[in-house]
């Protein structure tokens, strides 16, 4: 859904300059300009086909799988004793991750915004390096740090009196740590973009009217960054609900999330129909969130309508 929306946005962007570029060619009648536009839209056809083959067709297959026997698959999934627990897990873990990631992301974005050029590059590298690292690598690195004889517990053993290892791995704490690490860049960039669009004269104006540094931050800057916070929060929440491998590697069995339940149906119970029904339910819920995300204003000062 998000990807298709993105596709539409881009087609709009591309059409604009394309039409403009043809404008200087005054000898052409306006109709020809529109024909150029239409023929250039053809350029999107390959990507449309790829998306069709890779996203729409499988989705249709999944819906078909889920409807074998009418709505019984849905009824069985919804009445499963596992579902309530899993939904609770997913919501609690995702909300916790979102709150922590947005808080940390806000601080990082502010640091990026206010730092000098050299510091900014360094900070950007620190944000982007984990962004470019595979999720498995990050998860296994955390597992190595958090396990009973891992780096953190070994360190505690050396400096502390405690001989019993702290339970850091295979629990909810570890899952949330791993997830926050993964989603942090997704929180930083929407907020950072919004901050960049804030006119710095506002700050000077507020100060000239006698506002304290705290008032400037709290009454002027903060409200202007809220659209970025909402966008970051929603984006991070959407990504968080879809986590699969992190609960497997860093969590225990009681930290299973919805994606893990799909896997449980498909792999352990080998019931593709119910797995499909659950997947369709997830897509429906997430689509609502994506729809809301598409409608959040992306810019602070000028974009907030």
């Amino acid at each position, binding site marked *: 859904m998000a990807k298709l929306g993105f596709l539409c946005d881009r087609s709009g962007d591309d059409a604009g300059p394309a039409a403009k570029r043809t404008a200087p060619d005054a000898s052409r009648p306006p109709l020809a300009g529109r024909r150029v536009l239409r*023929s250039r839209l*053809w*350029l999107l*056809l*390959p990507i449309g*086909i*790829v998306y069709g*083959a*890779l996203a729409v067709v499988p989705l249709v297959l999944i819906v078909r799988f889920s409807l074998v026997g009418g709505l019984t698959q849905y009824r069985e999934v919804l009445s*499963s*004793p*596992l579902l309530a*627990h*899993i939904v609770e897990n997913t919501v609690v873990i995702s909300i916790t991750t979102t709150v922590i990631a947005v808080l940390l992301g806000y601080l990082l974005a502010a640091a990026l915004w206010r730092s000098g050029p050299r510091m900014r590059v360094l900070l950007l590298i620190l944000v982007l390096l984990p962004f470019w690292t595979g999720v498995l690598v990050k998860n296994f690195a955390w597992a190595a740090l958090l*396990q*009973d*004889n891992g780096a953190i517990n070994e360190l505690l053993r050396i400096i502390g009196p405690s001989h019993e290892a702290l*339970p850091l791995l*295979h629990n909810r704490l570890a899952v949330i740590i791993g997830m926050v690490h993964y989603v942090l860049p997704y929180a930083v960039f929407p907020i950072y973009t919004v901050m960049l669009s804030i006119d710095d004269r506002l700050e000077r104006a507020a100060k000239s009217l006698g506002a304290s540094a705290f008032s400037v931050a709290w009454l002027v800057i903060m409200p202007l960054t809220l659209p970025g916070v909402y966008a970051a929060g929603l984006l991070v929440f959407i990504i968080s609900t879809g986590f699969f491998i992190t609960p*497997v590697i860093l969590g*225990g*069995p*009681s930290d*299973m999330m919805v994606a893990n339940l799909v896997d*449980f149906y*498909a*792999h*352990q*119970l*080998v*019931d*593709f129909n119910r797995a499909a029904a659950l997947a369709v339910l997830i897509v429906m819920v997430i689509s609502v969130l994506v729809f809301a995300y598409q409608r959040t204003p992306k810019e602070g000062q000028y974009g907030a309508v």
Partner: protein
Amino acid sequence: MENNNGLASRLASERINRRDFIRRSAAATLAVSALPALTTRRAFAAAKEVNFATYGGMINENTRKVFAEPFEKETGIKVNLGVNSSLALAKLQVASGGSAQWDIVNLTGAEYEVAVKENLLAPYDYKIVDPTHIAPEYRKPYGVKYSLFLFVMAWDRRKIPDDKAPRSWAEFWDTKRYPGKRSIYANVSDGDVLEIALLADGVPVDKLYPLDVERALKSLDRLGKRNIIWHTTNQEPIQQLISGEVALATAFNGRIVVADRGGAQIGYTPDYAGVSGNYLTVVRTSEHKHEAFEFLNYVLTNTKADVEYIKLTNYAMPNTQCLQYLPKSLVDTLPTSPTLKDKVFLKNDAWWAANLEKTTVRFKEWQMTP
């Protein structure tokens, strides 16, 4: 594919205008998106190949060395090995339509029963696979149980010397004697977690089935969820024992033997182990059934290869010719050894096939309550 080649050659040979190019690249894209279907159906058939999904790690290494490579040399049929075989994989071969990507799949006992019920498998071609020396109790209409192994308790010898190691599951459960976590296989039908929980609770080996699932879960509660690390793949406990993450674990004996040969310090006992076996099956929608059964004939009846496989893995093979070539010390550690007769239990595939879903869901539910 033809479309694609056509486009490439035209691009090379003649100038084409832009609109033409766009129209053709669209056609090429369509062709490319249909490619996977084409390659699985045509290219593989032409090249005389057989695709065998098994369990990864040392199983793949030894299967390649002992069976696949000599077979390739002898027949010219290429054997491709894959990992993570399961009932889900077998079902996917049939459910996805068209011909199967994997021709031979490994299934556990319970999975085999379900696969037969759901019509996923091809009947064994005993004209190609010579049944003469395959023990009859392993020969089934749709599969042959080809490797028998033990689900055992294992320990890190660096922390627990063999003479202080647990001798029963009740001792394995004893957190006072062995503090710290145990790594246990979370798959109830593949491994034997419920069976060992009942043994730890005092159920005799010959009275396990039908399983009292609730009693098993209570026994696991007694051990305590915080004392258990669940593993989901078979190489995990070996790595956890080697890295020192745990000192006690459940594992399959062959993995331990191979790890120890590589210098690991893992001890185990075959006492009170669960005996299970894997089936070699051919998927109903395979287009290489002939090649598949030829390879299976090699695996199941080539005595020299079978003896070597047993020596490497400590897994028993159904080929009755093998025993005479094996030293007694090895025979004694095989799941089929008479010395273990009353000390091990056989995984009851029929009970598991009948109760698979109910038990798996109930166990998951238990696992998820904190």
